[in-house]
């Protein structure tokens, strides 16, 4: 352990010695869950071990990560695993995975529109592919294929464009005709009589679904195993900045000294904003303004039925995406609500519209019943790409603006943010997503592939 402790960031403050009960090192994996272990524990009536430790909050850390979702936890995990920085605290105002990480529709894909986007999301898909082995936890990745339907000539043209961009970067992605659509998903209505006939689709076999809670727990467990601390119900009330040009020494030119939480002040030279929904509120605390507006996205799930939908089906024109879970429920997602709000109350209007659109695609499921609906907050940026990396405040980093595509980018964001923090240089893959692109006008337009297309 002492060897590990000496591996912390060189440029940043002293580590708090002792008192930390990390139970692993940066090479070993967290223990595997097995049927044998379950049997032995059950037979001996042993308690099941906690997935992560609950330890007292320290007064200082090398890195404080705000937001305990897939992005924050992945960042902490890769900081510890790839860079040996383990004096890290992940703070969440509620419980781990309580925000967007537990509210998304768990779809992953990499068939984006811009070369920057494709390279980035493809790395994420690669990490998702080996995640179960890396984290020793079954995240139930189901590589079932992803189909984006085209109902207009314009949409078909965009699909063609995306397919060619994808192929240039070795992504398995192609445009298929309605007959092939029918073969892949027989429940879809591909006739000419539909109100929005299906003219073709962009088919992306490596896409699929994953169990999002398992991803959160896997990263939390892996990070904990390497000595990272997770603190739930710890709300950040303020970010402490010195020497900036704004009010109270905040803003551009300032330097982060720590955070103020509902459980006391924590000093830290590096604070990372990994929140979704509340990203602008957290950044405002450091005096950094972001090009982000917060909007809710509603989703719903039906009662479980036998498996009949083998792929993920997305329709941009109908504002809907559908996939069937391993339990047999159909998960529906929609587009974001058309106005800014932090209110996540669902609406009947949404349910009605969603149901109507799903039935236009699959008339056969008209008797199915909805089990429940929910919504989550999305941080929308003007160009539908995230805001990542350094900000004008020294030591304050952002991994925000994830709109409706944050979950599928979780692993790669964590990996690249960890590299950025450890090396002090913006990692190559996230260079296009820097905050300053809005000041220089170098936007990364992903609306054609990100809006509704999950």
């Amino acid at each position, binding site marked *: 352990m002492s060897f590990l402790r000496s591996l912390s960031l060189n440029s940043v403050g002293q580590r708090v010695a002792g008192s930390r009960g990390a139970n692993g090192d940066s090479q070993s994996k967290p223990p595997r869950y097995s049927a044998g272990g379950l049997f032995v524990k059950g037979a001996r009536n042993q308690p099941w071990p906690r997935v992560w430790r609950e330890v007292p909050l320290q007064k200082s850390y090398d890195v404080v990560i705000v937001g305990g979702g897939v992005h924050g936890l992945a960042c902490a995990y890769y900081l510890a695993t790839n860079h040996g920085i383990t004096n890290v605290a992940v703070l969440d105002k509620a419980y781990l995975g309580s925000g967007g990480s537990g509210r998304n529709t768990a779809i992953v894909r990499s068939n984006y529109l811009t070369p920057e986007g494709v390279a980035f999301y493809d790395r994420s898909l690669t990490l998702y592919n080996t995640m179960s082995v890396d984290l020793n936890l079954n995240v139930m990745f189901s590589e079932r294929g992803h189909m984006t339907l085209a109902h207009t000539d314009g949409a078909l043209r965009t699909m063609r464009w995306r397919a060619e961009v994808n192929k240039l970067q070795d992504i398995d992605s192609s445009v298929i005709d309605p007959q092939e659509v029918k073969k892949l998903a027989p429940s879809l209505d591909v006739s000419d009589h539909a109100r929005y006939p299906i003219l073709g689709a962009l088919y992306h076999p490596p896409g699929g679904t994953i169990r999002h809670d398992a991803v959160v727990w896997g990263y939390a467990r892996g990070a904990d195993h390497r000595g990272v601390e997770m603190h739930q119900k710890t709300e950040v009330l303020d970010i402490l900045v010195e020497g900036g040009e704004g009010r109270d020494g905040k803003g551009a030119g300032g330097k982060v000294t720590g955070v103020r939480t509902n459980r006391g002040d924590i000093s830290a030279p590096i604070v990372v904003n990994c929140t979704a929904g509340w990203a602008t509120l957290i950044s405002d605390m450091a005096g950094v*303004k*972001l*090009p982000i*507006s*917060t909007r809710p996205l509603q989703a719903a799930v039906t009662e479980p039925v036998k498996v009949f939908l083998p792929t993920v089906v997305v329709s941009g024109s109908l504002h809907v995406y559908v996939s069937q879970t391993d339990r047999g429920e159909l998960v529906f997602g929609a587009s974001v609500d058309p*106005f*800014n*709000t*932090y*209110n996540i109350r669902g609406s009947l209007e949404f349910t009605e519209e969603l149901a109507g659109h799903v039935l236009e695609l699959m008339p056969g499921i008209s008797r199915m019943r909805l089990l429940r609906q929910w919504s989550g907050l999305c941080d929308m940026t003007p160009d539908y790409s995230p805001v990542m990396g350094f900000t004008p405040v020294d030591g304050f980093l952002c991994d925000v603006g994830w709109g409706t595509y944050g979950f599928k980018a979780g692993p790669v964001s964590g990996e690249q943010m960890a590299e950025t923090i450890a090396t002090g240089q913006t990692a190559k893959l996230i260079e296009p997503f820097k905050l300053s692109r809005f000041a220089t006008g170098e936007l990364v337009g992903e609306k054609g592939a990100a809006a509704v297309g999950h």
Partner: protein
Amino acid sequence: MLLVPCPNCGPRNASDLRYVGEAGPRPDPNTATEAEWRSYLYIEDNPAGLLRETWYCRAGCRRYFVAERDTTSNEFVNSPLPGNKIGGKA
């Protein structure tokens, strides 16, 4: 459903209107720097609380108006009056 208080048409469903965005002063084109324009275009206040915003009554009177809404409860406060000046980002 969100009922938006149009000063001319009364409360209408948000789907009858278009949300234009945060209301605020447009920079003076004669003096504004590039950075000010870009900031006006992209940077948002995005408050959790009272927000002054511009709506366009698309399917009704086709007028722009400024309303104030609490973004945590979606309740409109200080309902706009007819003839209210058009705000910011139109």
